[in-house]
């Protein structure tokens, strides 16, 4: 198996994952991941397993960085999110009174960079499960293994992370002027 060919196929996805994991240090993280993968790619028997294999290496590299920089992974308190519902807040606040598809209009104000910016604001402990499961199609069982936590812990973090993400989307929309009727319409 040609390593460079395999790596090239995965580069865009790896870079996206690295951005979501470490932000501006993404390029360094991709290089570190590729170097480690190159050194051990003889162990990879099944090319179909390459995406998951590279994801595992990258997540391990990122976690090593978090640890080496003293960024302790803690259960950050996320008060008042358990019962938050973005759907209901949008309905109650009715930011686009003339819209007949209020909720979809709200979501479609968000470009990829906006969504990514909101995700980046989440504590690592909640962001990593969300990124792996919702952006990289990793199963919850696989994500639990990658992050070395029990499945129940992973599911609890996903739940809280999603709720906080919903709340942060609303805050971001208000702070970035996405709730104006003319926002993102170019008029």
């Amino acid at each position, binding site marked *: 198996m040609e390593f460079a060919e395999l790596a*090239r196929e995965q580069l865009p996805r790896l870079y996206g994952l690295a951005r979501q994991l470490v932000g501006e240090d993404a390029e360094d993280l991709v290089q570190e991941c590729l170097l480690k993968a190159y050194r051990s790619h003889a162990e990879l028997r099944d090319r179909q397993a390459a995406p998951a294999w590279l994801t595992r290496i990258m997540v391990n590299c990122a976690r090593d960085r978090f640890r080496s920089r003293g960024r302790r992974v803690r259960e950050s308190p996320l008060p008042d999110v358990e019962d938050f519902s973005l759907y209901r807040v949008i309905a109650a606040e009715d930011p686009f009174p003339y819209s007949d598809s209020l*909720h979809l209009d709200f979501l479609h104000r968000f470009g*990829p960079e906006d969504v990514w910016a909101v995700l980046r604001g989440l504590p690592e402990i909640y962001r990593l499960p969300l990124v792996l499961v919702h952006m990289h199609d990793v199963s919850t069982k696989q994500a639990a293994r990658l992050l070395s936590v029990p499945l129940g812990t992973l599911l609890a973090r996903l739940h809280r992370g999603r709720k906080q993400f919903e709340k942060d989307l609303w805050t971001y929309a208000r702070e970035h002027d996405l709730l104006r009727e003319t926002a993102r319409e170019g008029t």
Partner: protein
Amino acid sequence: MIRCEDALRDLWGYLCDEVTPESRARIAEHLDACRRCCGEIAFLNELRRVVAEAEPELPADVGVRMEAFLATLEGSTDDRPDAQG
């Protein structure tokens, strides 16, 4: 039948197939009768799609540097797996 407030806490789990079969049955029963929670499930599903498609793109200049890095790896000898023993 469970109330909206109870269903609300598990709608994400229901959507992503992360709840127990018993909980799934209770939420499904609620959704059969609750238009608002059906709307919320559809909204969460669309939000899930928006998130899945929000992956940052590989900038051209980064791509060029990565290509050069891969070429360096391929050209090196010390790091080759078959050169380590």
